[in-house]
């Protein structure tokens, strides 16, 4: 199963950090998110783009996890050479995360 089947995501930018929320469509699936989406696994999913570290915050009443990914935006939106300087596309990339 892909993360996309049970959750939706949105990224935001703060300096050279990308914030990434992962929200279960059904709060009953929150336990799966908590179990599979460790900070380490999320960082590994973005290897080559996010240099880390990655922090994780849990909001169980919303069925949501919030990740703060450090050193993720090529030096920050205003200086980055990347095509997607804001890292907006990172949220969609996480949807391909495989939950087994």
């Amino acid at each position, binding site marked *: 199963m892909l993360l*996309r089947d049970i959750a*939706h995501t*949105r990224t*935001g*930018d*703060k*300096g*050279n*950090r990308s*914030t990434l*929320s992962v*929200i279960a*469509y059904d709060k009953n699936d929150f336990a799966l998110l908590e179990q599979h989406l460790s900070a380490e696994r999320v960082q590994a*999913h*973005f*290897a*080559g*783009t996010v240099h880390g570290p990655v*922090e994780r*915050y849990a*909001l169980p*009443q*919303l*069925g*949501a996890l*919030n990740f*703060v990914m450090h050193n993720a935006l090529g030096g*920050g*939106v*205003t*200086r980055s*050479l*990347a*095509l*997607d300087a804001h890292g907006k*596309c990172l949220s969609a*990339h996480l949807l391909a995360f495989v939950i087994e």
Partner: protein
Amino acid sequence: MKTTLRIGAGAGYAGDRIPPAVELAEKGQLHYLVFECLAERTIALAQLERSKDQDEGFDPMLVARMRAVLPSCLAQGTRIISNMGAANPLQAGHAVLAVARELGLPQVKVAVVMGDDVLATLTQSGMALPVLESTQTLGDLQAQLISANAYLGAEALLPALQSDAQVIITGRVADPALFLAPLMHHFGWAPDDWQSLGKGVLVGHLLECAAQITGGYFADPGYKDVPNMARLGFPLAEVSASGDAVITKVAGSGGCVTVATCTEQLLYEIENPARYLQPDVVADFSQVQLTQLGPDRVEVTGGSGHPRTDTLKVTLGYRDGFIGEGQMSYAGPGAQARGQLALDLVRQRLADAGYGEFEGRYDLIGVNAIFGQTTTSPHEPAEVRARVALRVPTQQQAQHVAHEVEALYLNGPAGGGGATRSVREVIAAAAVLMPRESVDTNTVLLNAEGH
């Protein structure tokens, strides 16, 4: 006193759409309509405009926005709050009055909030301040510095709200504070009522990106479908004296307000949800509850707050060299191999010209431009676009980079087409923290006579 305050969001960024703001102004039965239009480096760019012409430096869409909403807002008693003053709030205030005169609304009064521009103060006494996320001090950036603007809090807007001005114009203010200010003013929340202030910040944070909570930036066909998206409405909040609120939009507008759209926006650009640092309060979103009350109505409760910090964040704009960029497309069998050859050629030619030391990107758009090497596909793409971008010290060097890509036409692989090149100055943003007592704010009232 009104028991419920109705606040709408008329823009979520500088270039936002105008028709949904008009719809809100006409049908939202609003007490306040807030336009948030300042991104991180917008003020630095506006300051450059002002340095060329002292009458410029405020939001270029201010006149169009005011022309569109002023008549409805005046007729219904809806007050307008906006940070469209950017680097020149006073001149923006005069521009609002000019629109009012043109529309035959001579009774309009404007309050202008100033004091966010702290460049002079910092130049005198702040050069030792450490730059956040960096090992430098402000002094290290002094020669390149364009602007320094403190994020003002809601408190700075209270004198303007206490006046009889229908339009309030500011420069840099923390985005949620544009919404918190009318709540503090109306409900009489004390500046140390951390719980209420935290709830007010929560309302502001949910509204400040406008359509991002009504179905914008949300649709994913088959997974997250959004109705009537072409006519997305902008949001409004019905806020009670306790600070709890309902997020909704006007009947008949497109989009949707659901627990899912609200959760995405709640966490948007948030780091630790229990400590969202704002000028007026450290807001706490960690216990927020969202409840769907009905179609397009979501109740927001559980916001809280903790005592504010002693410092204000200051955003700095500084010159940081130039970016030269070029792109070229390749298609058909072997597209990816020819695109890669093109990148290799440009890399070698730039290295031969002495550009090897500069930070650069060599992307194949359609293959690896977004995620680097993390995605692999067994299928060759039908087309790719080679992209080279380097950050270099001078404009001339940036032009050389862009030309080197374009020259692939006659000097590169077969079948390249659609070359584009661009050169732009990098106006970078950085931040320092300064003691809040070093920031003095003041309010200027303007009426139709222009004074």
